[in-house]
């Protein structure tokens, strides 16, 4: 079963606009990560935020984490057509000595020129 839900399921914007995707999860976590997937192929790691962090930036990406609400958001600023992809949040569950990622359902982003 999926750990969480992502919202919206699909998002269509114009180049230059900002895209915001939200992720909710169910259990306590060690960290939360965001991945991008192009055309149903491999996943590319974008950014990780630890459970004791509230906000993190990487280039045009901004991630927030609210552990009290069990939610996270990914903001892509000044979007480009090349950002068109599916985006997934993934949580690493606490108390596991080995890495196990639990993925959300994903947001499909379409950026039009």
């Amino acid at each position, binding site marked *: 079963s999926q750990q969480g839900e992502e919202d919206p399921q699909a998002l269509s914007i114009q180049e230059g606009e900002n895209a915001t995707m939200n992720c909710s999860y169910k259990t306590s976590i060690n960290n939360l990560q965001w991945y991008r997937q192009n055309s149903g192929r*491999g996943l590319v790691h974008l950014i990780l935020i630890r459970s004791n962090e509230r906000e993190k930036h990487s280039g045009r990406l901004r991630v927030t984490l609210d552990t009290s609400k069990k939610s996270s958001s990914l903001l892509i600023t000044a979007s480009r057509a090349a950002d068109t992809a599916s985006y997934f949040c993934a949580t690493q569950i606490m108390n596991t000595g080995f890495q196990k990622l639990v993925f959300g359902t994903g947001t499909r982003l379409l950026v039009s020129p």
Partner: protein
Amino acid sequence: DAGVTQSPTHLIKTRGQQVTLRCSPKSGHDTVSWYQQALGQGPQFIFQYYEEEERQRGNFPDRFSGHQFPNYSSELNVNALLLGDSALYLCASSLGETRRHSYNEQFFGPGTRLTVL
């Protein structure tokens, strides 16, 4: 560095058959995890291998089995294929056991697309 490689890229099987998928981890990595991604869904964890042993397992039946070799490469075997096994199978590699609050990034391969007819 070739990164994580998977073979084959695509595979078509019929119900009841058996399939073996292969994964070579990124250089220096010793842990391999397998995920199943159905169309339109997020990946779901199948199992993870470290030191040639299965360390964690997701909610998948015994028809799904695996193996890790001394060179850290891994195989995923699925027996008695069902139509519902049609999916993209992703392999991810990372560095072994982590402490509770540490993190070793998982690197994903391009996946194997399995179609069961």
